[in-house]
C-alpha cells in the first residue's frame, strides 16, 4: 500500500466505520433507534464534508480522474487497485449521500426501523462510493459485485416484499451480470498483462472476435443493471413491490451503476467493431422507454409511476453516455445530481402520503388540499422532475436532448415522446392529489409535515434552485 487514509480511501472507510459503530450502538426501546440514526447521519454528513474538501482540490476543467491512489493488493496475479475522482463522480457521490439523508429522515417515523437497516445502508454506501471512485477495471468489478449482498439483505429484510422468491431471483440475475463483467475484466487483464485504467479500456487493441466477446460481456453486465428489455422484469418486480422509501431509493441506485459503467468504459467512443451494435441497443432502449412510460401512465400505483419516471431518465442518460461526445458527460453529471435528490425526496414524501392514507383509511383524491406545506414541496418537486426550470435538471437535460436530436432526429423525437408521457404520469398523479372536487368539510385530512421538516425541505429546494444557476456553487466554480 503506498499511502493509507488518503481522502479517497476515507470515502470508503468512513461508511465502513459507521457500519461498525451502528452494529455496536445500543438499540432498544429506550433509545428508540436514536443512536443508530445519529451514527448514520453523522457518517453521511462527515463524508459530505470530506467530499467538499476533495471538491476544493479538484480541477473542474481537467480531463480524467484526479487525486489518484494506488493500493498494491495482490502479487499473483499482480493486481493494483487504483482509485481516482473527477467532478462527475463527485457529484454522483454527493447526490447519493444527500438522497440517503433524505431517505433516512423519511423512514425515521416508521416503527420497524432497526439498526441492521442503518448498518446495511452504510455498507451499501461504502460499496457504491468504492465503485464511483474506482479507476481501474478490477476495483470497479469488485465494488460492482460487492454491493449486491447488502442490497439483497436490504430488499429481503426491509423491503416488505411478500413474494420472497423474487428477491433471490433478483440477486441471481444481478450476480449473473457481475459474472459477465468478471469474465471481461479477467480476459482484459490477461490480454494486457496488467491492470487497466477504466478510460483505457475502449482504446485497447483487441482482435475483432475478442473485442466483440469482451464488449458483449461488458454491455450485458451493465444492461443487467438497467431496467431495459429483456432485463427489465426482475428490477421492475422488485421496485414495484418495495414499500420502504429508503430501500426503494437504494434499489433505484442500481440502474445508476449500470449507466455509470457505460460512462466510464466508453468515455468518448466504443471501438468501431462494437459501435455497429449500438443501433440494436438504441432500438431496444427506445422500445423499453415507450413501453415503461405507457405502463407508468396506466398503472395506478404511485410507486410504479416513480419507478417508470426514474427508468426512463436512466435510459436517456445511458443513450446520452453512449454518444461520441465527451463534453456531454458533465451535463449528465449535473442532471443526475438534481435527478437523484429530486426522486429521493419525491419518494420519501410519497411514502409519507401512503402511510397517512393507510392510517386514516382515505383515498388519494385531494390528499394534498389541506396540507399547504406538504403540497408546496410536493408540487415543486413534481414540477422540477418533469423538467421545469427550477433545478440543474432542466438546462442539462436540454443539452443532452439536443445532442441526442443532433445525433439522430428520430431517436430524439421518440425519447422526447417518452419523456412527455412520463411527465404526464407525474402531473396526472399530482392532479389527483390536488383535486379538491370531492373534498367536503367532513373529509378526513392527513397531517401536514412538521415546520422543522418543512424548513429543511425548503432549504433543499433552495439548493436545487441554485444548481439551476450554477451547478458548482459549493466550490465557487
Amino acid at each position, binding site marked *: 500500500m503506498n499511502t493509507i487514509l488518503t481522502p479517497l480511501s476515507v470515502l470508503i472507510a468512513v461508511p465502513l466505520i459507521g457500519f461498525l459503530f451502528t452494529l455496536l450502538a445500543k438499540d432498544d426501546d429506550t433509545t428508540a433507534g436514536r443512536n443508530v440514526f445519529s451514527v448514520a447521519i453523522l457518517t453521511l454528513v462527515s463524508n459530505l464534508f470530506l467530499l467538499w474538501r476533495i471538491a476544493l482540490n479538484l480541477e473542474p476543467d481537467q480531463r480524467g480522474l484526479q487525486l489518484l491512489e494506488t493500493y498494491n493488493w495482490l502479487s499473483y496475479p499482480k493486481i493494483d487497485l487504483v482509485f481516482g475522482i473527477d467532478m462527475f463522480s463527485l457529484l454522483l457521490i454527493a447526490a447519493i449521500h444527500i438522497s440517503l439523508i433524505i431517505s433516512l429522515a423519511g423512514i425515521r417515523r416508521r416503527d420497524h426501523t432497526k439498526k441492521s437497516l442503518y448498518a446495511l445502508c452504510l455498507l451499501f454506501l461504502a460499496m457504491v462510493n468504492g465503485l464511483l471512485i474506482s479507476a481501474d477495471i478490477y476495483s470497479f468489478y469488485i465494488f460492482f459485485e460487492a454491493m449486491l449482498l447488502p442490497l439483497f439483505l436490504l430488499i429481503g429484510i426491509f423491503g416488505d416484499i411478500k413474494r*420472497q422468491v423474487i428477491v433471490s431471483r433478483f440477486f441471481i440475475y444481478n450476480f449473473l451480470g457481475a459474472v459477465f463483467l468478471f469474465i471481461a475484466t479477467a480476459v482484459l487483464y490477461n490480454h494486457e498483462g496488467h491492470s487497466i485504467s477504466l478510460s483505457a479500456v475502449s482504446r485497447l487493441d483487441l482482435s475483432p472476435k475478442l473485442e466483440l466477446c469482451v464488449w458483449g460481456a461488458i454491455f450485458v453486465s451493465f444492461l443487467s443493471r438497467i431496467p431495459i428489455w429483456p432485463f427489465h422484469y426482475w428490477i421492475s418486480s422488485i421496485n414495484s413491490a418495495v414499500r420502504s422509501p429508503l430501500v426503494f431509493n437504494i434499489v433505484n441506485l442500481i440502474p445508476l451503476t449500470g449507466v455509470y459503467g457505460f460512462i466510464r468504459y466508453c468515455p468518448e467512443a466504443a471501438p468501431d467493431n462494437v459501435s455497429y451494435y449500438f443501433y440494436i441497443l438504441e432500438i431496444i432502449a427506445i422500445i423499453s422507454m415507450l413501453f415503461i412510460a405507457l405502463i407508468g401512465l396506466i398503472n395506478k400505483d404511485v410507486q410504479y409511476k416513480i419507478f417508470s419516471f426514474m427508468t426512463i431518465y436512466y435510459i436517456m442518460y445511458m443513450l446520452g453516455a453512449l454518444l461520441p461526445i465527451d463534453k456531454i458527460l458533465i451535463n449528465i453529471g449535473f442532471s443526475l445530481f438534481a435527478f437523484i435528490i429530486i426522486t429521493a425526496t419525491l419518494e420519501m414524501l410519497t411514502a409519507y402520503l401512503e402511510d397517512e392514507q393507510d392510517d386514516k383509511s382515505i383515498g388519494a383524491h385531494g390528499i394534498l388540499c389541506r396540507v399547504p406545506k406538504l403540497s408546496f414541496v410536493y408540487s415543486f418537486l413534481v414540477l422540477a422532475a418533469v423538467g421545469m426550470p427550477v433545478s440543474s435538471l432542466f438546462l442539462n437535460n436540454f443539452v443532452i436532448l439536443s445532442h441526442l436530436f443532433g445525433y439522430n432526429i428520430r431517436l430524439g423525437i421518440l425519447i422526447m415522446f417518452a419523456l412527455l408521457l412520463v411527465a404526464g404520469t407525474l402531473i396526472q398523479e399530482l392532479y389527483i392529489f390536488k383535486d379538491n372536487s370531492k373534498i367536503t368539510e367532513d373529509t378526513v385530512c392527513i397531517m401536514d409535515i412538521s415546520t422543522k421538516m418543512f424548513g429543511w425541505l425548503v432549504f433543499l429546494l433552495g439548493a436545487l434552485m441554485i444548481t439551476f444557476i450554477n451547478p458548482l456553487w459549493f466550490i465557487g466554480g
Partner: protein
Amino acid sequence: MKTYYISLLPEISLFLGSLVMILTNHFRSTTTPKTYFTIAKVSIFLSLVLSVIFYNQSFWPEYFKNTPYTTASKVLMEILALVSCYLGCKWFLTKNRSSLSFYLSVTISVLLLSLGISAQNLLVMLGCLDIAFLLNIVFIKLYPDAEEVSPIMHRYIMGFFIMNIFCIMGLYLMHAHGIAYDFAAAKKAYAQITNPSFKEYLSVVLIIITLFYMLGIAPFHFWFANVQAVSILPVSMFLSFIPPVAYLSILINVLYNVFYPLFGTLHLFIIGCAVLSVILGAVGANSENNLKKLFAYVSLYNLGAVLLCLADFNAKGIFTGFVCLIVYILALLGIYTVLYAFKRKGDYVAEIGNLSGSSTVLPYASASFLIFLVSLLGTPPMLGFLGKLSIINYLIVQGSYAFIGIILMATLLLAYAFLKIIKTIYFDKNESGFDRVDKGVYICLTINLFLVLMSILNPSYLLHDAEPLLTTVL
C-alpha cells in the same frame, strides 16, 4: 543417525498420545470428554511443533521423506485437527458422551495420514491410507441412529473393498510390468516407456481412482455426502478437513513424482473428474436441505475446482490450487464453527429450515455464517474472491475458456443453494429460541473472521512464501 531417530518424534508423539488415551481409559475411573481432548490436544500440538523443527529430516528416507512441502501439508492438517478437536469437545460436553473413540481415532488417523504424506513408496503410502480410511468406520458408528447408519455403513465397507481390489489390481499390473513401487524408481521407469500400453495406463488409473475415491472426487463421491449426513458434528467436521487435506497433498505428490511421464492421458482423466465434481457439487448442493450434506457437496465443488488447477502439472497450477484450497478451508471452517453455535434445546441444527430467524436471536453467529457463505461463493470483497480470481485467472492463461464457463455457471447454482440458507436465516420468522452459544465457539469464530478480513485486505499475510514452499514437491 541420532538425527534420524529424533525426526520420528512427531509420529512418536501421536502414537504416545493414543497409548495414553487407552491407558487412561483402562486405569482412570472417572474421565470427562475434556480428559481425552487434553491428551489429543497435547500430542497433536507436540507433533505439529516437532514436524516444523524437523521439517527436512527423515528417519527412513527410502520410505518416508520429509520436505518443506510435506511439512506444510502436515502442519495444515494438524492445525485443522486441533480446531476440530477443540470444537468437538463442546459437542461431547453438551451431549455428555464419552469422547474416547473420537479422540483416539483422530490421533491414530492423523498419525497414519502423516505417514502417508511423507511416504515415498506406493505400497507403504496406500497401506497407511487404507488403514486410515478403514478407521473412518469408527467415526461413522459414533452415536448416530443405528437404523439410519446401517445401510450407509454397509455401502461404505463395500466401496472400501471394491476400491481395494482396484488398488491391488493397479499395484499388481505395475509389478507385472517391472515397475517398482518406489516413487523415484517408478517415475524413472514410466519416463523410459515410449509407448505406454493399455495395461500400463490402467495400472495408473486404478491407483488414481483409489485416491479419488478416498478424496470423494466425482464420480467416486457418493459415500462422502451420505457419511456426512449421518455423522455427528465433530466427525463431520473432521472428515471435511483432515483427510481431504492429506489426500490432496498425497495426490499432488504422486501425480508429480510418480505418474508425471504419463501426463498427456492422465490430464484428460483428471480434467473429466474435476469438471464432473464441479457440476455435481453445485447441483447436489441445490437438492439438499441437510446442512452437513449440503456442505459435503460444496466440498465436492471446491475439490473439483482445485483439481482443475492441478491437472496441468505445473507450478502455477499447484499454487493456484493451494490458494483455492486455503480460501475454501477457511470459509468452510467458519461454517462448521457456526454450526456449533446453532443449537436448539441441546440439539445441533441439522436442517436448513431449523435456522429460521436465527439472525434475531444470534446476530453475530448469523452474520458470520453469511460472511463465510459469501466467501465460499467467491463474491468480493470476501476472501473467497481471491480463490475465484486465482482460478479464473489461471484458466484464462491456460486458454481453458470452457472450464471458466462451467465454473461460473456452477457458482451461480451454488449461489442459489446459499440464498436458500440466507433467506431462512434473515427473512424467515423465528419459530423457537436458540440455546446460549459457548464462548469458545465465539472465540474461534472471531479468530476465523479476523483471518478472513485481514487476508482480503492484504492477501500476502496468507500466501507469504507459499509458492516457493509448494514447489519443493516438484
